[in-house]
């Protein structure tokens, strides 16, 4: 076996692995989204329009991610976070541009679901911070959706 054939074989094997794993990774973030949407479902009856788009990825335990969000005074927003890892514990909180916690006290955290509620006092940028607090997985997929009314 020539060295170039060995390299070719290794590269091909790596490519096959990447192609085979890619849909699985995507599927997991999509799964996380379906849990986030599940958390949002009861709020639709209360007049919240849930955005089709969502934000997601994967995080290690105690790792945080911030999503910058333009919010408008006069609207009311809920952010819902979910993961498909049922033994995980996640949290979501909303801060203003100065880093001050600005959410309503009725936010909640129930295992692999969490919700944060904000009625912005000003129009501008806010930071939605998501965290995987506990998880049996090394990396945990998460998805964030939001709704407004």
């Amino acid at each position: 076996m020539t060295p170039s054939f060995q390299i070719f074989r290794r590269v091909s094997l790596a490519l096959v692995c990447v192609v085979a794993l890619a849909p699985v990774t995507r599927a997991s973030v999509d799964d996380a989204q379906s849990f986030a949407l599940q958390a949002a479902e009861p709020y639709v009856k209360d007049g919240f329009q849930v955005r089709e788009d969502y934000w997601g990825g994967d995080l290690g335990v105690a790792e945080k991610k911030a999503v910058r969000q333009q919010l408008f005074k006069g609207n009311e927003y809920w952010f819902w976070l979910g993961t498909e890892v049922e033994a995980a514990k996640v949290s979501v909180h909303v801060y203003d541009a100065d880093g001050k916690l600005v959410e309503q006290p009725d936010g909640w955290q129930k295992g692999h679901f969490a919700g944060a509620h904000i009625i912005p006092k000003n129009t501008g940028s806010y930071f939605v911070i998501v965290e995987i607090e506990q998880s049996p997985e090394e990396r945990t997929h998460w998805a964030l959706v939001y709704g407004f009314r």
Partner: protein
Amino acid sequence: MILFAKISKLSVALVAGLSLWAQAAEAPKHVDIKQLSKKVDDVVVPLPNEVFGALNKLGGVNWREYVRNDKGSNFTERPRIALLLGAVIADGFIAVQAEDAPTVKEIGARVLALAKGIGVGGSITPHAKAITDAADKRNWVAVRSELDRTQNSVQQAMNEVHDEKLSQLVSLGGWLRGTEVLTAVVNKRYSEEGAELLHQPDLLVYFENKLQSMPEYNLRLLLDIHAALLEVKPLIDTGDAQISPAAVKKINEITTRLGDAITKKS
């Protein structure tokens, strides 16, 4: 025994649930945003109807005045189609605010034609039909959701074929049309609350950066939009100070000019 087993399982689940609840760590009252800055995603571009909803709550908006029936020109350049597509979807949200069913249906058809022109028509066909059906039933909540799904499907289809830049132009087209209408409404009847809705400096920076990353398109219109964003930035990035009536008027002039350039062939 079966009943006892069920009760026992339920109790365990309840205790586990309550203990999880109790363990919920209290969120810190302050965080250092700069420390998190490396982990901050790009700003999320709001839908035009997010700002229209907030504006509507201030009262007194005659949305019919802002409904646009002009279908716009037919373009062959994909960036121009993408910008127009975003603007037309924003027009859809305006027509919904005005509860104008015929215009909503026309917009559904126009969105489909533009999506086909850009090669993503397949993903839009069911949404265009759903928009028409919902408009016939005057189910405005459903039309709003379908317009959102339409934009999302168009952008996902673009992202899947690595046309992320076109996807960003769809967002930009929608944002410009939304800002044009927002400033027209506030300019007509100025209020500090209405003007405050223009306070979107991070969105401007976001679009500026995206436009700078598209030199390959080499379109005069994109250069004009970039220059206009630089002109708008100091007018809305006012810190704690209010956005003045003169600034609102100026932004309306700029976005109206860009809106015309997006819809018409020069």
